[in-house]
């Protein structure tokens, strides 16, 4: 196994490079992605190596980035669109929901919407407003779209390539607070399918499910809980739409308790969906109701106080205590 250590940002960069090398129809498009390499440098050096026709610096109009990617898809190109920040995806929301999601259906399969919309999401970088949001549930709710999120450099490297190759439109959520964290990347073998959820740590008492930035938070909570004699099984959902419930069901049938953790508010969220589905599928195994740890139902706060909004290790542990407290 040829592995190498790199940051998630570099892994995405390398993954995109591989995608560009493998298929000449692959294009990248976004604001400041060329010479600058994107505000997070995810596309660093790619325009230099693949040219301005394939790594396209876009005028500053998000609806047009996605709308022209639709036209390019009709022409047979596969465009990876970069939304500079989560909060800037909304000008493109109409194109994504009205067109990207529906054109395969509307054309009876004649149009393949093979495009990826990269979305740096979640908070934790001390930014100003509109730079720290978690809009994944809006897209998960829309038939015709798929939504995935990576939590490690290895997943970032492989999932971006798998997303580019996939024929459905994919909202690709990147946890920006983890961009600079390093991990092992296997350059030869994809670890999982694009739409698989995976167990990151095995445990026996409580299943805790997260994705993106919160996976690491949960793993830390699991370390702490272990010292207190509570064994947490950690699941990385990875695919947010469709959700891959099989590993979750297996886990909850074993533990009888579960908690979901994400930065988005919990009303009508991915966590809500997981709680509803696992309650239905694992009803007779449950020893406590599923609990959602999330952001609050308010506009994202000023980031000097964002760590009191984002799920912390303590809040995860508190939720674990609550589900453990249902012991009869």
């Amino acid at each position, binding site marked *: 196994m040829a592995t190498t250590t790199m940051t998630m940002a570099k892994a995405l960069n390398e993954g995109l490079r591989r995608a560009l090398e493998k298929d000449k129809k692959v*294009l990248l498009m976004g604001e400041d992605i060329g010479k600058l390499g994107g505000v997070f440098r995810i596309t660093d050096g790619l325009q230099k190596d693949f040219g301005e*026709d394939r790594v396209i610096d876009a*005028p500053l*109009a998000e*609806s*047009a980035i*996605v*709308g*022209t*990617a*639709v*036209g*390019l*898809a*009709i*022409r*047979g*190109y596969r465009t990876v669109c970069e939304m500079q920040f989560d909060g800037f995806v909304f*000008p493109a929301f*109409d*194109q994504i929901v*009205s*067109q990207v999601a*529906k*054109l*395969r*259906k*509307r*054309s*009876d*399969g*004649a*149009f*393949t919407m*093979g495009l990826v919309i990269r979305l740096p999401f979640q908070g934790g970088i001390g930014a100003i407003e509109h730079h720290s949001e978690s809009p994944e549930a809006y897209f998960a709710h829309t*038939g*015709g779209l*798929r939504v995935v999120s990576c939590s490690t450099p290895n997943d970032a490297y492989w999932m971006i390539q798998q997303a580019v190759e*996939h*024929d*459905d439109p994919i909202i690709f959520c990147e946890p920006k607070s983890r961009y600079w964290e390093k991990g092992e990347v296997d350059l030869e073998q994809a670890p999982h399918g694009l739409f698989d959820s995976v167990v990151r740590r095995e445990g026996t008492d409580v299943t805790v499910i997260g994705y993106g930035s919160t996976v690491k938070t949960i793993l830390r909570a699991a370390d702490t809980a272990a010292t207190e004699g509570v064994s947490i099984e950690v699941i990385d959902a990875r695919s947010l739409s*469709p959700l891959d419930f099989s590993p979750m069901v297996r886990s909850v049938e074993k533990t009888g308790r579960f908690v979901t953790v994400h930065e988005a508010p919990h009303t009508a969220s991915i966590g809500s969906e997981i709680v509803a589905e696992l309650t239905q599928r694992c009803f007779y195994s449950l020893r406590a109701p599923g609990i959602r740890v999330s952001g609050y139902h308010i506009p994202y706060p000023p980031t000097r106080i964002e760590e009191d909004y984002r799920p912390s290790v303590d809040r995860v542990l508190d939720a674990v205590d609550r589900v453990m407290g249902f012991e009869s």
Partner: protein
Amino acid sequence: MIDEELVRLLTPEGERVAHPEYQSTLSGEEIFGLYRDMVIIRRLCNESTSLQRQGQLALWAPVQGQEAAQIGAGRAMAPTDFSFPTYREHGIAWCRGIPPENMLRLFRAVSNGGWDPQKYRHSVPTIVLGNQALHAVGYAMGIQRDGAEEAAITFFGDGASSQGDTLEAFVWAASFNAPVVFFCQNNQWGISTPSSLQSKVPLYRRAEGFGFPGVRVDGNDVLAVYEVTKRALENARVGGGPTLIEAYTYRMGAHTTSDDPTRYRIDAEVEVWKHRDPVERVKALLVREYEIKSTAFDDVATEADAMALKLREDVLAMSRPDPITMFDNAYASEHPLVDEGRREMVELGISGGTH
């Protein structure tokens, strides 16, 4: 109407007029062909309105008054060009060779599209205003990357000219010099909204601010529309970049069969435009200049009637789709929630099929 700004080759009375930049290149036979196209489209449109009134269509978007704009533009396209329409481009669809009954599948509510857009190089109808302008620009960017001598053309109305997507499409087309033609049918009304509320300058003049040429053409003059569109497409195909064409025309009927224009516009305005009828002026030219006999016109009317009858039969034969087909082509590959929906539908006995 600001006559001096308008490219016109045929007066409302059907007399030729000279224009410094555009001359008609069409033979009598070709002009007769355009006449035939317009008569057929008008007849099919009338039949469709009747079908809706009889409860056979969910909705219809009439094209009356805009036949010259659509047939002129549609016939100016090369087979290799690709068009991106709204829901009212029946004349363009006709020129692309799409069977009329397929145009009505959307309005019969048995499909969200109705034809194979890759086969006819004519995208499916776009209902959200302006979205398709960006698709055309993206497609044109693909043409550039393929090094092909082709063009994209997108259709929209004066209403959609206020949409952000339309204006973003202008920016992108200019910045990338995309081989695209923006064809705006200014039919004066966006449902009840007058074009005066959409723009304080003639729409074609907006192009200059974006950095490419704009042309206002008499949208009821099929000869002028044909020449202006043909030149814009040719220019785009050889790297000349985008053009905005404003076809100045009038929506003689309602916005759709759900609309009641008597609530917001006056009869006198409609009367003025009746005298500018796009079909009658070509007919007058054909009679005067080419001495086409009345039997030839009668033959076209008979042909159009026969097509209308066939359209009616085809529409009535369109039955309710098997509900299980709603899951088809929602996704390109297997999807657990789609499978779950299909399974439930079969279990509940709603459908026996397995698409």
